């Protein structure tokens, strides 16, 4: 069914565009912070780019990309080069490109810019987009609380930015919805990508009694350690089942393809407009890898939770108390997006002191 829809969409794209395709090929350009071979964040963005191109047809869309572009002075140069080399739409796929994106966008008003995970839109040709990965983490929390015998999960975190804090809180809330006494231990690896360090962090967490490992870092090392030590784990960014066939419970898969296709299509059709999109499960931005290595009742609970979120439920629905016990959200109150995007405190029950 999904396939038919896709090919229909592709066919529609080709038809609506058809004759003028040859002269008006859209050039979509992507700038990645890591190597596309990281099998994590940049890899998934690149997969999304390829999927969008496939969907809209190679005759209509030309791709160009730059990988491992540092987020300092180099980003501005890379973007300017893109803009001058005839890109019609440029996706800047890391938070650190925010200022460079807005600066270059000011110089090239005819080029559309799409910045991932940022909040500045200083010119009408800049849009921002992001995904509600925390919805997936809430589901993971539910699974963790059901699967854990010790009632303790270990969380390998990268850097204390709102996105990561949001994920930790969502995981905790999901777990508490099953087991109010659930414990969560957090280790800050201070890296997005260092397999050795991530493996060490996973070992430390397991040694301290965690029997479920989840991560907000990009390598597959923690999954392998969990497999070796015989505990369960969640994947990150992409489906990591290959690295833990008997270990992975599920994985949050960053699915950028549909959004990229939609935005590139808008440029083709000449109706691109500035927007700020924060897509979640309901929009297909966040996809859960198959629920594996768990009994049927847990799988059922996971699927029910997923359905609930897709139906509009926010994991951040009160009553929720902050870590120090003070009230954050009253019963039934839903946190607004602005607060969530700048979140810098834990909810009650997280066993860690948030680095400030």
């Amino acid at each position, binding site marked *: 069914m999904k396939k038919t829809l896709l090919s229909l969409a592709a066919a529609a794209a080709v038809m609506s565009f058809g004759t003028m395709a040859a002269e008006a090929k859209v050039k979509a350009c992507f700038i990645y912070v890591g*190597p596309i*071979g*990281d*099998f994590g964040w940049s*890899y998934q963005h690149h997969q999304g780019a390829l999927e969008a191109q496939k969907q809209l047809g190679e005759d209509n869309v030309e791709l160009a990309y730059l990988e491992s572009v540092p987020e300092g002075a180099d980003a501005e140069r890379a973007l300017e080069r893109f803009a001058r080399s005839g890109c019609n739409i440029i996706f800047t796929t890391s938070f650190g490109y925010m200022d460079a994106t807005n600066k270059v966008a000011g110089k090239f008003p005819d080029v559309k810019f799409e910045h991932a995970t940022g909040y500045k839109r200083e010119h009408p040709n800049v849009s921002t987009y992001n995904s509600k990965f925390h919805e997936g983490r809430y589901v993971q929390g539910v699974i963790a609380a059901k699967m854990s015998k010790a009632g303790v999960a*270990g969380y390998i975190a990268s850097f204390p930015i709102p996105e990561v804090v949001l994920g930790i809180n969502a995981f905790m809330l999901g777990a508490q919805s099953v087991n109010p006494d659930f414990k969560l*231990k*957090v*280790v*800050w690896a*201070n890296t997005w*990508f*260092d*397999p*050795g*360090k*991530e*493996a*060490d*962090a996973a*070992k*430390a*967490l*397991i*040694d*301290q009694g965690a029997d479920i490992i989840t991560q907000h870092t990009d*390598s*597959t*090392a923690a999954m*392998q*350690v969990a497999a*070796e030590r015989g505990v369960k784990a969640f994947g990150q960014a992409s489906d990591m089942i*290959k*690295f833990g066939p008997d270990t992975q419970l599920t994985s949050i898969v960053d699915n950028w393809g549909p959004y990229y296709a939609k935005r590139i299509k808008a440029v083709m059709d000449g109706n691109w407009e500035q927007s700020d999109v924060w897509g979640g499960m309901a929009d297909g931005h966040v996809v859960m890898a198959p629920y594996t290595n768990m009994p049927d009742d847990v799988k059922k609970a996971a699927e029910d939770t997923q359905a609930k979120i897709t139906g509009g439920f926010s994991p951040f629905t009160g009553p929720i108390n902050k870590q120090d016990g003070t009230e954050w959200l009253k019963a039934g109150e839903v946190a607004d997006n602005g607060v969530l995007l700048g979140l810098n405190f834990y909810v009650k029950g997280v*066993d*860690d*002191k948030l*680095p400030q």
Partner: protein
Amino acid sequence: MGVIEAILLTIATAATPLLIAAIGELVVERSGVLNLGVEGMMIMGAVTGFGVALLTGSPWLGMLGGIVVGALFSLLFGFLTLTLVTNQVATGLALTLLGLGLSGMLGESFVGQPGIRLPNLHIPVLSDLPFVGGLIFGQDPIFYVSIALTAGVAWFLFYTHAGLTLRSVGDNHASAHALGINVIGIRYLAVMFGGACAGLAGAYLSVVYTPQWVENMTAGRGWIALALVVFASWRPWRVLAGAYLFGAVTIGQLHAQALGLGIPSQLLSSLPYLATVVVLVLISQNKRLTMVNTPASLGRPFVPDR
């Protein structure tokens, strides 16, 4: 498995690659050559080790591949510094750069593939003994290699004639040459031994530690190995102590975090580096100790007179 035992095992795994690479560099420096390219040789060993293990299905061949490529790659350094007498510091840095770039190119098709792990030793009964079983009889084979290597190098350097020759080359290459010793030949062998060790250490990372290939996966461990050699004042058993101390600090800071103590993680992460500086100072302050152990010709080029 008890918590303490588990922590000790983790420390051993973290220390092993540092120990192997540092022991190799120790021999190189004892012969009077400073090779700053450890990181580059390690990463070449890592990509080869992973690739060979993946393609042949044998992790042992992977380790061997890492050793061979590490040694070959170090020959490049040897040719420049020993035959063409180039500056050793700059050449070592070039080797690191080249290694990081080349390994990234060679490894592009390995990304995202699960590797094959070298299985741990398992001796029935012994490996299952409480507490000591896993530590003494149940680790990965390369752990034992690293200990044997330390013992072997310590014995070689201080109890054999060949070891004495190597040290004399490092202490005073001019008089060693006058005695009819082939200075350049011995230094070539030492450099290749260092390369082989670095290659093995790299392969350990990609085949045992975290069986996968990613760019830059050595993440600065080659530099730590270099620091360990000086930290140990060029004594093999002290290298072992240093590597385990470093491993313990690294793992300890993760445990301190998991306990929720709330110390800034950046401070904890910088402790190993600060500790190295402090120990370097303490060691070099002791003039007698430094004089006895430092290879006097370290880093000096040698051109035989004719």
